């Protein structure tokens, strides 16, 4: 029998407190025991989660108008540079922004102990943030300097807007070189000393909807401990990569742009991070509910770590030089076991994305749906998937002085 369920039906059950919800981890055993058809008949929603470093994150702030007014130009928040190239008192604080005088990698490997991600965490934690601003002064915005302290609840708007989150699959980073390297994938010891990966695997949102059949623009999600929405497909969205038979990509593929009101989020799920020798960033907690509209969707949600493959990439040579060769694939089950084999050598693995965090997010979202405080939304438009034929482009390389391209 074909299962056909609508979002409206699911929401009706959520409202009545009768929705059957499992996390993407729990559902694996359910499907194994009952089969896809029976599971699809009984289960309404599967919740996913991920809690990893996501550099393409940040927040738009409107800090209100001073008296007399100022058109903010050079702005720092706790010393960290914010982008002010929009309206007078609108700002964007990016996760990887650094203090103006940060020594960065001059003292290699640099500490990057405080950056934009930490400013966002401090704001969400309700701490006072120090704003310093300069301006050139205009007839309508005469002030040239301003300095104040403010807290999140004292400003007009604070909107988390992350251009790229929730990567569908990611590289496993190793180091084939002779010395330790410091990367956005963590510290990589020489001669294949360790392997770092960054995905929640079977719990990860886009591994449970590999072809984007349910997730679209306007999908309501767990974001940073509060409510958020899918705004768009993320930057570097690349659904066209080679896929496994189960629909899941063998390489980093789809991404999501996410949006939500920062004021209702929690510092627990938006954490400033310092990557030694690389920079500052933000660890973002997010979870997406997958409505079980059909057996097909149920089948996707039943995916387990053993069925998901990540490419192994050398971050000493291949990655920095943008060479496409990789060192083979490995399953997330092997990665999570703690040891993988690369070029005949056994190496210990570590994750940068917190599996425990992902599990907790999926469980939290499940609890929200279970008690009726979170309902599902039908997307107002789909996201480009495999059939869109997106081609992933490198940076153009033309000599501006040259006569011809």
């Amino acid at each position, binding site marked *: 029998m074909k299962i056909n369920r609508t979002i409206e039906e699911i929401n009706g059950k959520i409202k009545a407190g009768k929705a059957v919800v499992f996390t993407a981890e729990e559902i694996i055993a359910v499907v194994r025991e009952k089969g896809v058809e029976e599971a699809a008949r009984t289960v309404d929603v599967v919740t996913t989660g991920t809690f990893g470093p996501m550099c393409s994150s940040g927040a738009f702030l409107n800090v209100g108008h001073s008296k007399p007014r100022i058109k903010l130009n050079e702005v720092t928040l706790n010393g960290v540079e914010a982008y002010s190239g929009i309206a007078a008192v609108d700002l964007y604080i990016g996760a990887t922004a650094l203090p103006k005088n940060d020594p960065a990698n001059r003292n290699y490997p640099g500490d990057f102990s405080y950056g934009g991600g930490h400013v966002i965490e401090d704001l969400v934690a309700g701490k006072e943030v120090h704003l310093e601003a300069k301006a050139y002064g205009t007839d309508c915005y005469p002030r040239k300097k301003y300095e104040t302290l403010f807290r999140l609840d004292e400003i007009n708007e604070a909107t988390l807007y992350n251009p790229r989150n929730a990567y569908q699959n990611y590289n496993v980073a190793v180091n084939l070189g002779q010395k330790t390297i410091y990367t956005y994938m963590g510290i990589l010891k020489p001669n294949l000393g360790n392997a770092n990966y960054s995905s929640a695997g079977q719990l990860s949102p886009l591994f449970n909807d590999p072809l984007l059949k349910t997730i679209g623009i306007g999908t309501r999600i767990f974001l940073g401990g509060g409510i958020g929405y899918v705004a768009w497909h993320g930057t570097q969205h690349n659904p066209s990569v080679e896929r496994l038979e189960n629909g899941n990509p063998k390489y980093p593929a789809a991404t999501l742009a996410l949006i939500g009101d920062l004021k209702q989020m929690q510092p627990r799920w938006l954490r400033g991070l*310092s990557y030694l020798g690389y920079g500052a960033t933000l660890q973002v907690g997010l979870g997406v509910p997958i409505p079980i509209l059909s057996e097909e969707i149920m089948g996707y949600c039943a995916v387990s770590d053993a069925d998901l493959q990540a490419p192994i990439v050398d971050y000493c040579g291949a990655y920095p030089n943008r060479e496409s060769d990789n060192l083979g694939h490995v399953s997330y089950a092997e990665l999570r076991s703690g040891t993988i084999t690369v070029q005949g050598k056994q190496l210990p693995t570590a994750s940068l994305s917190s*599996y425990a965090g992902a599990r907790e997010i999926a469980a939290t979202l499940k609890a929200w749906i279970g008690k009726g405080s979170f309902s599902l939304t039908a997307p107002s438009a789909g996201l480009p998937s495999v059939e869109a034929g997106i081609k992933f482009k490198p940076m153009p390389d033309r000599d501006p002085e040259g006569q011809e391209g």
Partner: protein
Amino acid sequence: MIKQKIVLRFPPHVVEQPVIYHLIKDYNLMVNILRADINPRKEGRLMMELSGEDADYRRAVQWLKKQELKIINLEQQISWSEERCTHCGACTVICPTGALNFERPGMTVRFEEDKCIICELCLRACPARAMEALAENANGR
């Protein structure tokens, strides 16, 4: 029998004393040196594991204190903030002794203090900065 990891801090005027010799010869202790250094101010730091009879160990500690050496129990040197830890696991492949490791299948990070040798590699390897070196003299005994 006692087995205890300690840190000895030497003020400049005793840094040249053969302390280990006395611990072995006069107090019959087994000494396993984990790390030793002298800073530019000529203050020395010695991390080691001592084992031997309880009475010998107690007498040795008294003697060390008389030499104006500061003794700090090793496990108190590094602290793990469970609240800051996001359980990513970046530290687990950096920690040389496995003191920081993953509890499977729960995939939560745990810190087993007795395995820590205060190499301090975790301090900067932790992206969430959940590992802290305690103020050096705060827990001196």
